[in-house]
């Protein structure tokens, strides 16, 4: 193993060159002594997202730019977006385990692709994460189509799930509402993947057509048309399901 590396603080451009510079021929007042920032990883701080104020687009763009060089900035992005992506993928898959796995894939891919990421005006970073997550959901759906698993609602999942308007936490009521969602979810799973994506983003994530278009990389008109056709097809699927029952 080679000798330990040296870390020398780079110049700040003001002539203060190194972490600590000693000039024996100068008086104290003229000396430059400085130490600077080192990029560092974070300490474990969990579930901090809820305490974080939302970032403006400018602030976010700055954070994304820094994240390319500064791992701690990427952690900040992670903390800000983890819950959103996990929840999106949960609503797409209705399985905690799968949602967590796909969330992991999403963030690892984001980490790898960050250098090549180019932010666009008025488009939040989260849109990019949504796009990666949507692709993950698509790949999962394709594989699960070949090996369909029964759509179950494990008790552990039910304990972690809540509904914003469900009133007091009540496992039985939660399960009931989850069953209601699951019925719709089952119907959506029978649609083409592109229909699933637009419906999920539009109705469960509550996005505008423009945002959906941005995430899916399609024109707004195309998205509107896709949503319309998806709704019609969904109505037919639900009708079939009711008829089967």
């Amino acid at each position, binding site marked *: 193993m080679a000798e*330990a590396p040296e870390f020398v603080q780079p110049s700040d451009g003001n002539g203060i060159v190194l972490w600590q510079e000693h000039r024996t021929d100068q008086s104290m007042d003229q000396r430059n002594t400085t130490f600077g*920032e080192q*990029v560092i990883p974070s300490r474990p*701080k969990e*579930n901090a997202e809820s305490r974080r104020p939302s970032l403006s687009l400018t602030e976010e763009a700055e954070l994304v730019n820094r994240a390319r060089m500064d*791992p701690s900035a990427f952690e900040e992005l992670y903390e800000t977006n983890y819950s959103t992506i996990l929840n999106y993928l949960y609503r797409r898959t209705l399985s905690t385990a799968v949602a967590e796995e796909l969330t992991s894939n999403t963030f690892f891919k984001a980490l790898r692709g960050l250098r090549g990421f180019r932010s666009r005006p008025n488009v939040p970073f989260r849109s990019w994460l949504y796009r990666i997550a949507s692709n993950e959901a698509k790949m999962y759906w394709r594989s699960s189509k070949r090996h369909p698993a029964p759509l179950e609602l494990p008790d552990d999942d039910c304990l972690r799930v809540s*509904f914003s308007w469900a009133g007091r936490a009540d496992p039985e009521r939660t399960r009931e509402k989850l069953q209601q969602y699951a019925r719709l979810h089952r119907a959506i799973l029978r649609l083409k993947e592109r229909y699933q994506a637009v419906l999920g983003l539009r109705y469960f994530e509550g996005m505008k057509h423009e945002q959906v278009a941005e995430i899916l990389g399609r024109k707004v008109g195309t998205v509107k048309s896709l949503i319309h056709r998806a709704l019609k097809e969904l109505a037919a699927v*639900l009708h079939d399901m009711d008829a089967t029952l």
Partner: protein
Amino acid sequence: MKDTDGIEKLFEQTPRPRIADGPHRARLKRQLVARLQDSRRAPRILRWLVPAAAAACVAVAAVMLVVNGTPSVYAQAVEALRRAKTVHARAFRIVDGKEKLGAEIWYDAELGVRERTIARDGSVAGEMLDNGEFRWTYNSAKKTVIKDASRDPVGHIAEILEFDRKLAKRPFKKVPGADQTIDGVSCLAYESRAEKQNVAQRVWIDPQNRVRRWEEVWWKDGKEVVDERCKIAYDQPLPKERFDPTFGVGVKVVDLTKATPMALEKSLIRKEVLGLVLTVHKVLRLDHGSLMLAWSHRPTKETLSRHRASHTMSSGNVLGRAEVQTGWRRLEDGTERSIQPMNIAVWNGDGVGTAWTVLIPKGPWPRPLEAIDLQFRVYTSGTLKEELEKKKQPWFLYRFDLGRLDLPEEAVTMEAACREVYQHAAWVHTRYGPRTVLLTGKMRPLTEKEKEYEMKRFGRTRKEVEGITIEPLHEVSRITPDEFVENVQANYTKLTEH
């Protein structure tokens, strides 16, 4: 009324489930952090082997991309390597056509990873062992092992696999007639040639999309010369004792995981300036008349509320910095004496920049100092600096009076003070990561290359650059407490000599 109104209403009526975060959140973050740390560490840890193994592993991924044309095959190739139960890689330098072992790496998915670097004379230069709980870094020259927290050995291997940015973009072509049977397995040869650089990467992959061999070749007078070679074997039984933390007789172990922190909660002096807070937490009188300060700078709460996006709590104070500026004092006899600061350690984390600075009174003083007037240079940076500039307000202060600090009567040895700093640094290191805290190395003059850079970059004269010395900084896991004490004492001696 639209024909889809009914179904839209159904969406409105169907509740939207929300799932609470579980342990996965922290686990994934740890994995991401480990990946980030490893990606920053890898070139330094493995030096020789990583580029070789990485190039090989990545090359195969690139080959997959070219051959099969789908990213999923690339992913499959990486996954296949990741799924390996064991990996044994040997990297060779090719000298006069003969293989000279340069590094060796053993990876067992259950036991961890061990890497060994071989010096040119054939001796073991160093080793790293990570068993998922602890990491041991052995330096044979120092006969020392530094025991540290694990950095995710699986992630370490995974990182090797993903060293792909440069090579993955290169077009690999099949090399007719270069296919080989390696360890009884028929492997296909592919090559990526960089004509301008007169170099090529060549890989052999097995039917399971795993790289078995990698070579770097170049051409001298039209004749092919192999420079480096890496051989990789998968899923072969590896000796379990390879993963025992044993490094030979008489090796000293420095256990960073048992370090204790220095009490830095107290504020001896605290003042706000330019939207930052400067605090002195601790002062020690050293036995030879010097002082040691532990001090910090951070944004004020108001600054933080306005610049949250710029300021991540996991990094240091990205909105500013400060330097001890305590300069000189006029004595009663009219003569002047100076006090020279010497930084010995720095920790940037938790939203704060913390430093340990030795203050060296220069020349003869009539009596020991009873108090000291502290001055700092203070700079803002980032969005805070921009904000102040926009308001046409100063964004730095050349001299800021923090106030008078009474000094303790009792003195401690410099060695004891340094060891206390090392303990704190080790404590930080194991909790916040290897790059958060850095300790001083021995001062040295600039190398000729550095001098040339200084002159070119900043227009300095030869005389100026000759007068510059620098202090390298070391990660805690790279130096022992004894070395740190030695470095500080050497620097102190050098400064007091003048």
